[in-house]
């Protein structure tokens, strides 16, 4: 009897002491069924009803998201919001959440995730909770704690909304404070590092302003409040990492640039200055086009490593790498880069030669006879 009992899962069963009625039955030496004498009850019930399904975790996840959707109103369908690319992939689901699914199941899951992401939730706390719950499946986010499967985040396990871009190819900040990204074009591969130029002139001016503000504060109370406001502004200016060049053209001040115009960033490609590596002006303009679009020319020191392909492919690979790094540095300020379409890889390749033709499209001269 013991041998038969131990074949069952131990998590569900536990040997118990016989009950008083069982003892009385045993004492009477009557033949009883082994199942009557022992109290065989599972003490640990499955967490969910999906336990007995082939993919319980997937089913639980899908039902949790569906529950969230059903609780709130869905907005009008907006195709641009429904992107599968913003959620983690199937492999990441398997590695991080131990949830295995096939392609169709993944498609269904991402549809539900997109719907949940587009929900209009009136309550702020609930909206934040749902957002935190969905963040653990969002690409680019590093989750610290797994939020409860019931769809509500525990107070002590709240996930910090930290966007950590771990993809250096798309643009990230590395451990040395450089913005790094990669780009490709034809057979060329480029990797760019961008370092913003420090605003030394602005910092020295900002340091001078608080001392002047303190002198003014002794005169009147109204001036004291203004003087207190100035150091904060000056501090904000001093905290700025990059130098911004002005766009206005004042003919009267044409002889004198602003005090902050002290240094201009260099561009080195494979260790050589830009005009030395790319002899053609078109290639140089191509490399610097992202800076021109974002109005950040000369505000970064750039180092690019490029290999493969020809001069045009290398130049455009550098352009893509620099555009990605620049966009990652400041998405709001450099939104023009995305608008200009500089973040997309140009997939055009040289078309193959066809038989019966001298080139891909060109045909041999037609001869009448």
């Amino acid at each position, binding site marked *: 009897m013991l041998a038969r009992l131990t074949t069952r899962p131990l998590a569900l069963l536990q040997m118990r002491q016989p009950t008083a009625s069982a003892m009385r039955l045993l004492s009477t030496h009557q033949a009883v069924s082994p199942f009557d004498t022992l109290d065989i009850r599972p003490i640990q019930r499955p967490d969910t009803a999906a336990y007995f399904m082939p993919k319980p975790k997937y089913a639980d996840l899908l039902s949790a998201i569906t529950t969230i959707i059903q609780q709130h109103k869905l907005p009008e369908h907006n195709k641009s919001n429904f992107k599968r690319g913003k959620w983690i992939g199937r492999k990441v689901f398997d590695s991080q959440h131990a949830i295995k699914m096939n392609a169709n199941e993944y498609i269904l899951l991402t549809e539900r995730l997109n719907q949940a992401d587009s929900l209009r939730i009136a309550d702020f706390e609930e909206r934040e909770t749902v957002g935190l719950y969905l963040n653990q499946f969002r690409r680019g986010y590093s989750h610290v704690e797994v939020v409860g499967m019931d769809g509500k985040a525990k107070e002590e396990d709240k996930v910090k909304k930290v966007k950590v871009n771990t993809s250096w190819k798309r643009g990230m900040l590395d451990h040395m404070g450089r913005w790094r990204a990669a780009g490709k074009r034809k057979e060329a591969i480029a990797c760019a590092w961008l370092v913003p130029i420090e605003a030394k002139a602005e910092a020295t001016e900002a340091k001078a302003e608080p001392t002047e503000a303190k002198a003014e504060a002794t005169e009147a109370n109204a001036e004291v409040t203004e003087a207190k406001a100035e150091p904060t502004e000056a501090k904000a200016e001093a905290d700025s990492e990059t130098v911004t060049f002005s766009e206005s053209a004042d003919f009267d001040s044409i002889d004198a640039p602003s005090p902050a115009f002290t240094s201009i960033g260099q*561009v080195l490609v494979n260790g050589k200055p830009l005009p030395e590596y790319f002899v053609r002006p078109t290639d*140089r303009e191509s490399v610097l086009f992202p800076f021109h679009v974002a109005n950040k*020319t000369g505000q970064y020191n750039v180092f690019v490593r490029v290999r493969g392909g020809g001069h045009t492919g290398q130049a455009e690979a550098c352009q893509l790498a620099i555009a990605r790094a620049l966009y990652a540095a400041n998405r709001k300020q450099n939104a023009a880069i995305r608008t200009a379409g500089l973040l997309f890889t140009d997939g055009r390749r040289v078309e193959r030669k066809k038989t019966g033709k001298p080139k891909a499209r060109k045909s041999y001269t037609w001869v009448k006879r």
Partner: protein
Amino acid sequence: MFSVADRTQSTAFTKKEGGSSGSGKKLRSGTATSVNLLNANPTYYIEPARMQLATLNANTANDSHVNKFMQIDDALLQSIGKGHFPGTLGRDFKLFGRPALLYRRITQQLVDRLTGAPAQRAMVIDGKNGSGKSAELMKLAAVAAAKGHIVVYAHSTLPWVNSSRPYAPANEGSLFVQHELTLELLKSVLMLSKEALARVALGREVVLGKKTLTAEQTLADLVSFGIHTPSLAHDALDQLLAVASAQTQVPLLVALDNVNTLWCNTAYRDQQDAVLPAERLRLVRAFLPFFDGSRAISSGLAVGATSYSEVRFMPRDLKERLNPPPMVPLANPDVASDPKVTRPLTDVPFDVVKVDRMTAQEAWALMAFYHKTNVVSMPVTESLVAQKWVVADGNPRQIFGSVTSYF
């Protein structure tokens, strides 16, 4: 009727003389001709802005004029001669309508070196193509001439070695002489430093051919004699350099552009049809001691500017010495002690001054000047200056090229 000679005369662009007969506005353009703007479209023919530029002289060569454009003195321009400006400066001056150059920080450093203590070694200005080496040398010569120094300024030594001028074997020895070039050099020295030469007495008897110059006579007399006697021009130049470098009364400036030609193989051939090294030219041999350390100037400076435009006249050895590769110390002691292991030589008998890329303020001053002279029509902003600087990597020649290009 027209003769053959008349038909060869171009009648398309004739220079119109100004004066009372001239009617309407006349534009002195970059070419030698003048255009009558009486019926010209003002949209296309714009007169250059009339700017008041300070002339580069002893008073204006100071810190307060850094990053400002200044005009080159007419005396220096006349000594160089029309159309013989170094590099592409002649074309730039025509475009601007005036011979003006930017007074940079490096220029001030060179002027401080000129006015400072006498240097034991010569100085060579080196840098990439278009970085402003020839311009710096010209400015230095202008300042020295304005200060009353004796200036021996050769705006280009390429004609000395590229076989474009006549040469002949000397009477004795294995040297070759170039009377024409030496004569031109003496004329330019006299035009530029006549007063300074007149202040320095020879101090000893100088015998040139059959003529003997007394000790009381001055260097001006010596140079004038050399000009009037072309066959003795070399002797006059040698005596001029010997006396001027030894005296301390008036500082001497020896300024040679394309100084790398002093060590190159010339385009000349000797009597055995062998390539002639530059040191066998008497004109080169007159200046070589200043740059190889064998002769020092008691009061003054010897300056040279290299040029990489004519690669065949840039010796490879000199190029490697001027731009040595990064010297990594040999970690392996066996390799370090091996006598067969050769490492690039980096020692040179002169001081090297590198002309680096322009600073942001210099680039701004350059673009502002281009805007004022209608070379650039766009308004000058910091972003525009930064864009042009980055495209050109701070090289003035490349900045000019990107500004004047059509795309």
